[in-house]
C-alpha cells in the first residue's frame, strides 16, 4: 500500500496559473485529483476550458462568472471509460468481414456520435470514452477516444490504438467452410492457437516492414498500419481474458519488439501478476464480481488492490459488460475489495487515462488539463452518492434536475 501525505500535496497544489479570468469555480468538501490523491476543502478553478488552479482550504478562490458551491459536494475528474462499444452497431454488424486482420479499419468511422449511449455514459459521470472496433477479428482496427459532449460526442484522438483480440471473440462460432453458404463464421481461426498464429504473422509484418528490404506479407493498407504499431506510433491494445492469453500477448510483443502495448478485458490478471510486473505492461481490468462463485465471468473485487500493491499499472474498465453496472460501480467494488478510495477513483479516471495514453489531456484535475469534472453529492465511493453536475471542457453539460432546482 502506498501512503500519500495528502496535506502536503494540497499545499503544493495551491498554485494559480494566470490563464485569463476564471469562468467557473467549484468549491468542494473534497477533491479527487485523479492520481490517487485527494484534497480536503479544495476549490477547482477553471479558465479557458482548462483547469487553471486547484486551491487548498487556506486559499480563497478568485471570483468567477459562475461558482458552484454545494454542501458536502465532492469533485472528481470526469470518468474515463477505457473500453466501450458505445455508438457502434450491435452484434457482429461492425466487424469487417473481409479478413481476420483489419488494422486499417477505424472505429471512429463506424461510431454513431449521436447515439443515446453517450448520454447515458455522461449521466453516469463518464466524460471520455474509448470506442473499440469490433472484436470478432484478430486485429479489429483502430480505436478512438471521444468526449461525451451532449448531442454528439466529440472525437479527441481519432486513432488511439490498434485493437487486437486474443480471447474468444475471433474464434467464437467459427468453423471451416464445408459447402453451403459462406458466412462470416466460415473462416479461420477456430482455436486460440490459430488466433495467436494470425497475430504472430501480423506482428512479423509490423516488425519487418520498418527494416530495409523487407518483403511485405500484407497488402499496403494493412502493412502500413502494422508498421506504425511496430514503430510504437500506434500502441497495440490487446483483449486477453485468461492468464494464458495475457502471457501470449506479452510473448508476442517481446518477439516482435512491439514497443508500446497494453492489455485489456483481463479477468485472470492476478494469475499473471509477476509477468505483468516484469513486462511493465499496463492492464485494464475487465468486469469485477464479488466473492460470488456463480457462473459469471469476472475478476474478484480484490484484484485491483492486489495489482496496485504489486506495482502494476492498472485501471478499471467495463469492457463489453452490459449487465447494468456503471463504471463507478466497478470503482466502488474495487474500493470494497480494499483499494483506497482515492486510488479507486483514480482507477476510473487518471489511471484509465494513463493506460490509454490520454493522460496528457484528461483523467486528472491537474493544472493545464481539460476541465472535465463531476460533482457528486457525497464521496462517489459511497453507493449513496448522486451525480449532481458534470462538465466537459469547463462547460457544464449535465445537471441533476433536483440539483439545479435546489440552486434556485
Amino acid at each position, binding site marked *: 500500500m502506498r501512503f500519500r501525505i495528502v496535506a502536503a500535496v494540497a499545499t503544493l497544489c495551491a498554485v494559480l496559473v494566470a490563464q485569463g479570468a476564471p469562468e467557473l469555480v467549484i468549491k468542494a468538501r473534497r477533491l479527487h485529483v485523479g492520481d490517487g490523491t485527494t484534497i480536503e476543502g479544495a476549490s477547482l478553478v477553471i479558465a479557458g476550458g482548462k483547469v487553471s488552479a486547484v486551491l487548498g482550504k487556506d486559499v480563497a478562490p478568485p471570483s468567477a462568472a459562475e461558482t458552484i458551491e454545494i454542501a458536502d459536494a465532492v469533485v472528481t475528474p470526469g470518468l474515463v471509460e477505457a473500453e466501450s462499444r458505445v455508438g457502434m452497431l450491435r452484434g457482429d454488424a461492425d466487424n469487417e468481414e473481409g479478413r481476420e486482420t483489419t488494422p486499417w479499419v477505424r472505429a471512429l468511422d463506424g461510431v454513431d456520435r449521436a447515439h443515446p449511449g453517450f448520454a447515458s455514459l455522461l449521466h453516469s459521470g463518464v466524460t471520455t470514452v474509448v470506442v473499440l472496433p469490433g472484436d470478432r477479428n484478430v486485429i479489429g482496427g483502430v480505436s478512438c477516444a471521444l468526449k461525451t459532449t451532449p448531442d454528439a460526442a466529440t472525437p479527441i484522438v481519432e486513432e488511439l490504438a490498434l485493437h487486437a483480440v486474443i480471447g474468444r471473440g475471433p474464434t467464437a462460432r467459427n468453423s471451416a467452410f464445408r459447402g453451403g453458404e459462406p458466412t462470416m463464421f466460415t473462416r479461420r481461426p477456430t482455436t486460440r492457437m490459430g488466433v495467436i498464429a494470425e497475430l504472430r504473422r501480423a506482428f512479423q509484418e509490423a516488425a519487418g516492414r520498418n527494416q530495409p528490404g523487407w518483403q511485405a506479407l500484407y497488402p499496403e493498407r494493412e502493412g502500413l498500419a502494422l508498421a506504425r504499431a511496430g514503430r510504437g506510433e500506434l500502441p497495440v491494445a490487446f483483449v486477453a481474458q485468461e492468464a494464458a492469453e495475457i502471457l501470449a500477448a506479452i510473448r508476442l510483443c517481446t518477439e516482435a519488439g512491439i514497443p508500446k502495448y497494453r492489455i485489456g478485458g483481463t479477468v485472470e490478471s492476478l494469475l499473471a501478476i509477476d509477468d505483468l510486473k516484469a513486462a511493465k505492461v499496463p492492464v485494464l481490468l475487465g468486469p*469485477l464480481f464479488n466473492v*460470488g*462463485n456463480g457462473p*459469471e465471468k469476472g475478476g474478484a473485487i*480484490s484484484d485491483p488492490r492486489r495489482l496496485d500493491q504489486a506495482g502494476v499499472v492498472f485501471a478499471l474498465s467495463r469492457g463489453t459488460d452490459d449487465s447494468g453496472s456503471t463504471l463507478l460501480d466497478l470503482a466502488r467494488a474495487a474500493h470494497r475489495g480494499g483499494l483506497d478510495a482515492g486510488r479507486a477513483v483514480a482507477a476510473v479516471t487518471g489511471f484509465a487515462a494513463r493506460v490509454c495514453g490520454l493522460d496528457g489531456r484528461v483523467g486528472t484535475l491537474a493544472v493545464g488539463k481539460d476541465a472535465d469534472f463531476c460533482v457528486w*453529492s457525497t464521496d462517489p465511493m459511497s*453507493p*449513496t452518492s448522486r451525480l449532481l453536475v458534470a462538465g466537459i471542457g469547463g462547460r457544464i453539460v449535465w445537471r441533476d434536475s433536483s440539483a439545479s432546482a435546489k440552486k434556485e
Partner: protein
Amino acid sequence: MRIPRPFVAFAFLAAFVSAQDLLVRNAKLVPIAGPDVAKTDVLIRDGRIAAIGEGLKADLSIPVIDAAGRTVMPAYVLAGTTEGLDRANENMEITPYVSVLDAIDPTRPFFDDSVRDGVYTIHVMPGSRTVIGGTGRVIRPVGRVVEDMTIVPDPSVTFSMVPPQGNRATQMAKLRGALDDAKRYLENKEAAADTRPSGSVKLDLERLAIERRRETMARLLKKQMTAFTYCAEPGDVVRALALAKEYGYQQRLVLGPGTWKAADLLAAEKQPVIVSPEMEAEETDPETGKPVRRELPAILHAKGVPFALTARPTSLGQRYLWYQAASVVRMGVPRDVALRAVTLTAAEAIGLGKTKGSIEAGKDGDLLVLSDDPLSGRSWVDVGVIEGKVVYERRTDRRMVEVLGLGDGKN
C-alpha cells in the same frame, strides 16, 4: 381415500435446527423498529430475541459476541426472487400446480452468497413469463434439503399481468378463466360431501393431478395463500387490483419501473409493494422528446406507499440488497425507509412482519454483525446469526480469507 394434500406433509417439519441462545454485546444497533442505538446488548434465547439493553446479564453458558465498534442489524429479507431454481418459468401458461419445492437446488452458489451477504429470509417464487406460474416458498439459505430450509411452505402463487406475446386482454381472459374454474371447483366441492368409500384401491392419477392443480387456486380463493402479481405497466396495476377485488383474494404487487404512474392507486391500497431489481424507467417525455428518468422507489415513497426492494445477481450493484437500499437513498429516499425496504417492509410483504425484519423482543433472532454502517459500501458481514445460531463468520470464510484476502477486516 382422501387425497393427501401435499403441503400437509410439512407440518411435521420442526422449525430450523435447534434454536439457540446468544448474547451480542456492545453493538451499535440498527434495530429498524426504532431509532439507532449507539451502544447496547442483544440477548437471544431459544432462537428469539429476549432482551435489548445495555449491560444485560446472562448465564456463563451462553456464547457471547463482542460487537464493539461494529454495527448490528436484522438480517436482510428478500421478498421475491427466482434465484436458486433450475429454471424460473414453465413453458405452459397456467401452472398453479407446480411448486418451487421441486425446483430449489440447495447447492446453488446463490445460497452460499446469501449466507455471506446476510440475506436470511428468501421468498423464492416462479418466474413471471406465464399467466399463473406456480407456488413459491419462503426459505432460509441454510439446510441440506429444501425441507430444512423452509420457513413458510406455500405462501404464494405467481400471477403475471404481462403476456409473453402482448395481448393483455387475452391474458386477463385466461386469468379469469382459471379463477372462474377454481371458484366453481370450490363451490362443487363444498356442495358435494365426500361419498367415496374408504379403501378404494384404484388410484385415479389423472383425477388426482387435476384436483391438485385446482387446489392451489382454491386455497388462494380461501385466502390461505397470496397472489404475487407482476405488473410492468400502470395499466397492469389497474387490472391486477380490479381482479383481486372481483374474486376476493389476497395480493401483493411486484412492480416493474414503468408502473410509477399508478402510484396514486397504490397509495390508496395501503399495502406494501415489491419493487423489482430494475428500479428506474428511462422514458421519453412526449412534450419535449427528451429522455426522462423515473425512479420508482422515490415516487412510491413520495406517495406514501411502503415498498420492499429486491436484488438479482446478474450485475455488480443490483446483486446486493444493501446496494439497492443505498441506491434508493441516492434517489432521495430517507435512509430509514431504504433500510426498512430490505428488512421489515420486505418481511411484511411476505407476511412475516411479526417474526422477521427487525430487532425487537419476541422476534426471531436473525441478525448480522457488520464491520461498518450497512450503506457504507465497505461494510462486510462479520457474523451472521439465524435464530440465535451463528451460521457465518467472515474470519472462517475460506473464500473471503484466501481468495479475496478480506477475512481479517483490515482491508
